[in-house]
């Protein structure tokens, strides 16, 4: 897959396609992808166990599709064909089924990316408070960090700390312009991001919330 050219802010692929995948034909040398047979596909024991424990939670084990894909993604960095095949093997589904699920959800990556997700919210509230500049600045700082998957994201449910970033699930904000280099350094190093700005420690803004 080639990388897209950006035209008018729209990613355009060769032949004018905006969407990766649209221009892909099936590879006729491959066999059809049925439910993988456990006798043929090997799955690491701990991954199998984790997926099976999710399957046991639901009346219909198919419900474990998202948790299973997340577990596989955790292991392989993205929902690679190998990851999907293994999850499908444990769940007794076709890999196509799981690939379709993976493609639907923003947090499941269907192309190789950095292992560590860093999301910058660029939705309305955050962009009113400078999110686009924050994303651009972080892109400058982290563009070359191979294991970081930095991307703009739709509303992350933290507009109270706009503009904000989710660093592997840890929400921080509001991120001031002068904090960006420090934040980028922490992300790169895998350190706690902006400890003073973490949402988890933020008190309620409602002045009466703590009153009896």
């Amino acid at each position, binding site marked *: 897959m080639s990388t897209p050219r950006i035209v008018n802010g729209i990613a355009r692929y060769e032949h004018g396609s905006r969407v990766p995948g649209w221009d892909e034909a099936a590879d006729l040398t491959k066999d059809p992808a049925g439910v993988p047979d456990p006798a043929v596909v090997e799955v690491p024991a701990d991954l199998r166990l984790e997926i099976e424990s999710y399957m046991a939670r639901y009346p219909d084990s198919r419900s474990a599709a*998202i948790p299973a894909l997340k577990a596989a993604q955790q292991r392989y960095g993205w929902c690679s064909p190998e990851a999907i095949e293994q999850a499908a093997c444990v769940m007794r589904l076709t890999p196509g089924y799981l690939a379709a699920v993976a493609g639907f959800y923003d947090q499941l990556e269907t192309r190789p990316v950095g292992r560590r997700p860093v999301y910058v919210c660029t939705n309305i509230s955050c962009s*009113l408070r400078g999110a686009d500049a924050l994303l651009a600045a972080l892109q400058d700082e982290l563009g070359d960090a191979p294991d970081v998957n930095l991307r703009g994201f739709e509303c992350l*449910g933290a507009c109270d700390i706009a503009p904000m970033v989710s660093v592997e699930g840890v929400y921080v904000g509001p991120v001031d312009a002068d904090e960006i280099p420090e934040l980028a350094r922490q992300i790169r190093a895998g350190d706690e991001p902006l400890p003073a700005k973490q949402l988890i420690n933020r008190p309620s803004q409602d002045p009466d919330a703590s009153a009896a």
Partner: protein
Amino acid sequence: MTQKILFKNIDEPGLATLDVYRARGGYGERLRMALSMSRDALVEELKASGLRGRGGAGFSMGTKASFLPKGQLDKYLVCNADESEPGTFKDRELMQKCPHMLIEGMIIAAYAAGANRSFIYLRGEYEQQADILERAVHEAKVAGFIGDRILGTDLSLSMWVHRGAGAYICGEETALLDSLEGKRGNPRLKPPFPANQGLYQGPTLINNVETLATLPHIIEMGAEHYAKIGVQNSTGTKLVSVSGHVQRPGNYEIELGMSSRDIIYGLAGGPGEGRSVKLWFPGGSSSPVLTGDDLDLSYDFDTLAKAGTMLGSGAIIVADDQSSVVDIALKTAQFYRHESCGKCTPCREGTNWTVKMLERIKSGDATPMDLDLMASVCENIIGNCLCVLGDAMAMPIGSMVKKFRGEFEEYIEAARAAAERELLAGLAPTQPVAA
């Protein structure tokens, strides 16, 4: 000062733990009381409280619970904790700081609905909250509040936290069910409604986090008392998430019927020095926008509906006089295009088309006639889709074009002029063109 129900002592250290929550009366007398009522009596009590759903549609909680058929079927309770409506972040604070309040509410709702399996569908991005919730659910299981024969009654309930993976549409209740069943999160045709055929085809009650978390308090204070808070048809308190151009963005618990100005200016501090409110979304980005002239509207379901918009999830997004309505419209449209599931035609194509038109406006390739086209496309989306995600884009965009048409036209002219200048500069001949 608004009476605090959900946010009372919300920052109390350790409130997320079972011990502190119980010390405050959690899982105590009120739960025993709820479970000792007959199911019908409990449903009546919930109806009498006038509690309307806090997730967006504002449907009576008790009435919805009464829709579930009786009988020995496998029934389900699902808590909608997807909280993806732009501007909304109230459920997050509630779950993070007081997860047991939600769990206790779910036990009561499950009893009312006759459900014995429950799931909390939590948006996948809320990882820290998920950990907290899972810990709380585990504590509640160990303490016997979840499991077989709760408090010695005939209620048995299982509960799991199900983490989503990033899709706004999964907040729509039927899409949520498909997603919870392990499928792509596409909305389903209604009817059948979830109350009849929901999760795994079984009768299912779906409620928002805040709705469910309110239940223990309704039992404790009595429906009659609860119904006295707020205004007619909008009883109780509501968490509002205020964000955007305000000085103190955050969640505030208000009594329904409070003046919007008091929320935006009084609680959230209003826009910065010297700025004024240009437009605001009263109930998340799906609600048609209001302007600075509408600040005195009472913040309740009916008043906002009458003003042509909605209370929605209670998320107020404020934009001040320096912001560009074109930018806000584009952000809004882009969001819905990105989140459209793609199942039905008007939404999939209409959101995409609207974004393209707005992009044309930005790049200077539009004329004022395109505003009519955009309005017409929005009209063609509204009411014709499978779920209301399409409407959720078309309505606010439609309202922006209508209320800020002048600004759109100015923008179009300016952008055209700029584009022309750029074009001419690009063509700049070595010799000046003769006049």
